[in-house]
């Protein structure tokens, strides 16, 4: 007998999955590449150049990033639209997480849109018109120049924090939505694990950004020198 599933069920499950794979894993890779800036401009530019030599780049980029991203973002807005937040009457932690997940979703929507136009395509007139993609040799300089403006730094701190929150809580949501984590105690431990992951990711993300402002990031170049 055929299995009878609604499109809505399929779409929701795809939405939950796409947030983790590929998008969540892409963020790990993205932070990893950006963290090469801790080693200096040359190391970062090499990493960017390396990325642009990935075979079948256009397929990887569109199938692995852009299409899942657009799907997750647009369908996410639909889900957010349905929410009837009631945090004042029912101020429980998970209920706050529910509302924050949707709020950060909206922030990330605009932030990522800006970020991609900005660095991937160089389409923000008045700020940046040179895409980092294809200009690996000046990649570090392009980014560092933007981060001399305070408002850009503020936008990125907010954007990175919202993204990391959304992903860390997203891992927890995926674990329960796919029935991996079930009982109350398992939910609690999964929560601690996601919180730890979130803190670590946030530190790595902000440090990578800082590397474009101060040599060697938040800990300074001597720190990295010691381990090089």
């Amino acid at each position: 007998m055929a299995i009878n599933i609604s499109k809505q069920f399929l779409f929701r499950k795809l939405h939950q999955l796409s947030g983790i794979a590929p998008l969540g894993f892409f963020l790990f890779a993205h932070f990893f590449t950006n963290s090469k800036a801790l080693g200096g401009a040359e190391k970062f530019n090499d990493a960017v150049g390396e990325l642009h030599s990935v075979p079948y780049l256009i397929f990887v980029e569109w199938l692995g990033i852009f299409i899942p991203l657009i799907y997750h973002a647009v369908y996410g807005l639909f889900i957010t639209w349905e929410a009837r937040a009631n945090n004042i009457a029912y101020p429980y932690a998970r209920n706050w997480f529910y509302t924050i997940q949707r709020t950060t979703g909206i922030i990330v929507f605009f932030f990522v849109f800006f970020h991609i136009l900005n660095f991937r395509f160089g389409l923000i007139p008045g700020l940046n018109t040179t895409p980092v993609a294809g200009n690996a040799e000046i990649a570090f300089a392009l980014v560092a120049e933007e981060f001399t403006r305070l408002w850009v730094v503020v936008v990125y701190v907010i954007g990175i924090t919202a993204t990391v929150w959304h992903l860390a809580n997203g891992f927890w949501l995926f674990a329960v939505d796919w029935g991996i984590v079930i009982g109350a105690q398992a939910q609690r431990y999964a929560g601690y694990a996601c919180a730890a992951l979130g803190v670590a990711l946030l530190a790595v993300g902000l440090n990578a950004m800082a590397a474009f402002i101060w040599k060697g990031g938040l800990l300074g170049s001597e720190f990295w020198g010691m381990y090089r």
Partner: protein
Amino acid sequence: MSTQINPTNEANISRGTAMGTATYAAPSQTPDGTTEAAQRFVEIKIARRDNPDSAQRWETFRIPYRRNLNIISCLMEIRKNPVMANGERTTPPVWDMSCLEQVCGICTMVINGKVRQSCSALVDQLDQPITLQPMTKFPNVRDLAVDRSQMFDHLKRVHAWVEIDGTHDLGAGAKMSQEDVAERYAYSRCMTCGCCLEACPQYGGDNYIGPQAIAQVRLFNMHPTGKMTRDERLEALMQDDGIQNCGNSQNCVRVCPMSIPLTKAIYEENRETIIHGLFGWLKR
């Protein structure tokens, strides 16, 4: 349940002490435990509606305080003499009640902004003025009465019963492990009160099957005979407005007066629907 009717609740203790002091000061005690000098009132604001299509309005009432008043006894007091605090006469308020011991669920309403049963809501534990509103997620029939048939439709949709076919004796059913019995007992306590749906930020306009029906799927899918129609229930959960609409705010499990592990039920069924729905075709 226990937190709401716990006699050692702090609010009760302090109230008891205050009353005791008053008794010594003025020995002319009235039969209901208060003193004439210390006669106090309970102020109650009720959201009224005359019929399903008319607008809602607030009416304020003031009734004499007695010890151990609950919301239903307040409403009965108001019904005896429906005069508002401003002296204006009005119609007796309408609400539903039956068991008066938090077992039937029909007296559920929104009290001071939170959904709960009015029969077990004690005045001594509530801030005043006390506000009473009908649940907002179900059609409001009149005053505090709502039509909860959505929930019963959901039970039909998910096939929340065990099929026993035939008129002949089928013999004893299969045995259940003690563990399963305990888990099923928890789910079986659902009284279809609607608290979980009222507090669910995803629920509104009957757009989601909801935690109450999902827990009943769990109940009947754990039953040895109920298991035989397991897939039918799972597929009911995977239709439009199905289990996928849960947003994991977990309000349901926090407000359920019967302490039913609703999120556990939802996540168990998430696993079952994923395995059946997404991976089931790999078995063919």
